[in-house]
């Protein structure tokens, strides 16, 4: 299975009459975007803004980010099953705007009707300043679409619409006319490696519980399903899409498509490791027995794939740690050496137990830092995506005033803290 990937990079982004990538200049036509999404926005008011790395800009209420990807000659094929009928992905040619994000911001039309578990968490993206290294996206160019659903739209209809809008615009942007824009061309294929290299899988546990808190694979909700083998090329082509709004812990769609773990394993494939592919599993199973079984099945799949080792990562926090640790334990019991990556919750004062569950088998942990340590966040010059920061308990905060909060206020915080190289350590 072979994918040819064409990575384009933008040096700047601006509005234009026609969307195009000329040299490094990405021009985006609002009218053309309007044309793309008009059938999806019958009951949605929307506005668009641009944001660039290093700008003094804070994006509020971020619900998802998507990286523009389109199949050459058949741009409707990426993100299978979300907007149209699914076809297999992971082969052929894909164009990607590597440092651009389609960013969907906004609020659900009936947030008062949501139970606490359904309610989106505030997700900020700070394009510069203290917060930049805690949120996913501060090093990307953004086309921010702020959506406001009318009362006629249900929360579930809004959920579906925002996903389809994101996918449409991401496909459309990746397919714009390009001239004088050199592409970095990569062929991604897992065949033909030296047999003496250690065989390694990536175990990829996502959050998928109920509508508004779920993850999709080819458009299907990953719930109570068995762990599945997924080829890294399928991730790159958008087979896994986020539908959860637990902002701080969420793996945004853009990070399903361009995941640092998958990229690092592909980079070392054939030289240091034999990357076998990804085991996609689900956390937040209801009972201990189910959590344990999800771990057993993941380990069994890794064994069938003949893995010597595994890197395990998870989306979520709290009780899903048990699902994750049961997976690590089961892998070790199957003789698969495992390294597990997690955030820590050491408390604002740093003395709390780092993990809620930590069996002896999890003897090789990589830390993503203490997510409960408070930060002083000075305001940024411009605020887009909303007018007030949502804190817990319906409290509001004026985004033009300094904010004293922990990294859980940021969009994609767990992932980005890890990618920024943050970890927790003892300090006296």
């Amino acid at each position, binding site marked *: 299975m072979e994918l040819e990937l064409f990575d384009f990079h933008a040096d700047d982004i601006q509005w234009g009459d026609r969307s195009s990538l000329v040299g490094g200049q990405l021009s985006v036509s609002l009218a053309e975007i309007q044309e793309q999404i008009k059938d999806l926005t019958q009951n949605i008011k929307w506005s668009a803004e641009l944001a660039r790395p290093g700008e003094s800009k804070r994006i509020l209420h971020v619900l998802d980010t998507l990286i523009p990807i389109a199949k050459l000659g058949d741009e409707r094929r990426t993100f299978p099953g979300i907007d149209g009928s699914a076809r297999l992905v992971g082969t052929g040619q894909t164009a990607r705007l590597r440092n651009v994000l389609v960013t969907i911001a906004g609020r659900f039309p009936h947030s008062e009707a949501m139970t606490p578990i359904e309610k989106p968490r505030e997700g900020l993206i700070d394009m510069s300043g203290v917060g930049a290294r805690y949120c996913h996206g501060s090093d990307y160019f953004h086309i921010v679409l702020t959506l406001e659903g009318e009362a006629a739209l249900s929360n579930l209809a809004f959920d579906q619409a925002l996903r389809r809008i994101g996918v449409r615009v991401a496909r459309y942007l990746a397919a714009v006319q390009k001239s004088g824009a050199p592409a970095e061309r990569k062929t991604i294929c897992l065949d033909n490696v030296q047999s003496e290299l250690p065989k390694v899988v990536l175990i990829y546990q996502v959050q998928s519980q109920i509508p508004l808190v779920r993850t999709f694979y080819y458009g299907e909700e990953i719930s109570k399903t068995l762990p599945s083998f997924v080829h890294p090329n399928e991730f790159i082509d958008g087979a896994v899409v986020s539908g959860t709004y637990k902002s701080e812990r969420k793996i945004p769609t853009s990070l399903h498509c361009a995941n640092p773990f998958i990229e690092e394993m592909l980079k070392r494939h054939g030289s240091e490791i034999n990357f076998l592919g990804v085991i996609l599993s689900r956390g937040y199973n209801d009972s201990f027995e189910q959590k344990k079984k999800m771990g057993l099945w993941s380990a069994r799949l890794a064994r069938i794939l003949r893995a010597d080792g595994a890197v395990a990562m998870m989306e979520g926090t709290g009780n899903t740690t048990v699902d994750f640790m049961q997976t690590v334990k089961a892998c070790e019991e199957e003789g698969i050496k495992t390294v597990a990556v997690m955030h820590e919750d050491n*408390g*604002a004062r*740093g003395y709390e137990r780092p993990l809620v569950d930590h069996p002896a088998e999890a003897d*090789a942990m990589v830390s993503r830092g203490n997510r409960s340590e408070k930060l002083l966040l000075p305001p940024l010059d411009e605020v887009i995506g909303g007018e007030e920061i949502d804190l817990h308990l319906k409290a509001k905060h004026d985004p033009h005033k300094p904010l004293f909060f922990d990294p859980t206020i940021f969009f994609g915080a767990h992932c980005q803290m890890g990618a920024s190289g943050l970890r927790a350590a003892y*300090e006296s």
Partner: protein
Amino acid sequence: MAKVLHYLNQFFAGIGGEDKAGQEFLFLPKPVGPGVLLRDLLKDRQKEYATVVCGDNYFHENEETVLASLAEVIVQFQPDLFIAGPAFHAGRYGIACAKAASFVHERWDVPAVTGLFEENPGTREIGRHVLVIQTGSSAASMQSTIKRFADLAVLLLNNNQEGLEAFKEEFCLKIPRRFTVQAAAPDSVRALDMLLAKLRGGAFESEIPRIQAAPHPIPAALQDISRATLALVTEGGLVPMGNPDRLESSRGTKYFKYSIEKRDDLKSGEFEAMHTGYDTSTVNADPDRLIPVDAMRRLEREGNFARLHNYYYVTTGTGAMPAKMQELGGGIAQELSACGVNGVVLTAT
């Protein structure tokens, strides 16, 4: 030349003892109590020395108000250094010193120093980068502690990093706590490096220490349940509709009790669950599913136990900090025990 602001409680400010613990927050444009000696030791260094005073009880009962008043003082006085205490082994005072010093340091980046005995509960409230001078357990060591405060103040005001490190090593309390630091590489790179080391049988160091929860043995059964008073307790976040006390929906730091006296069951629309960790819709449809007043009343009528306690207790368990939960659990148990409750039905979600 620098400005120093010193926090003291009512006792060390010379206002009075326990009878004056309700003393409101007070600003004095001069040193008082141990501040006089410290001002003298820093004579050459500071140009202004002011004191804020607050009664120990007043601080704990009005923390938000006190910190808001402290904020106003910081903005007006603009201190270069904040000193709190020393509080030695005094618990309420120690916590107040730790909170005040952490507040000032974290919100305004003003260097902050306090002094505590190692067993003072205030050591649990110390913010990152707040310096805690180790003291004896009583004010007998006041003189020597103030001299250390002065030495540290000079190092801080001179920004003498080397001297600070040496001072910390010798005189500051070592409180092992975990905070975020910068590693040399992203998590994905470190994870693969660690995996390769593990696969080769080489040395690797896990980045997260394995700290196990303290075991919680199941308590012995009640001897005679028919004579027992039972109470309902939950971490499931059930509160009266509208959440009047603003219980957090995750990472709870409080607990509340609500009356179920004269109630035979809990009705939908009168209670709601504040909890981000489970789908609360079934509990909202029938709150007895979480706090089973209906079943308990029936068992009570049938004489299976003597009496259902008039209040249920509630906190939010999801995303909670174990040490905080231990504290809340202890508080609930103490209150119930004082009311003569013999057993608890504890519902978890």
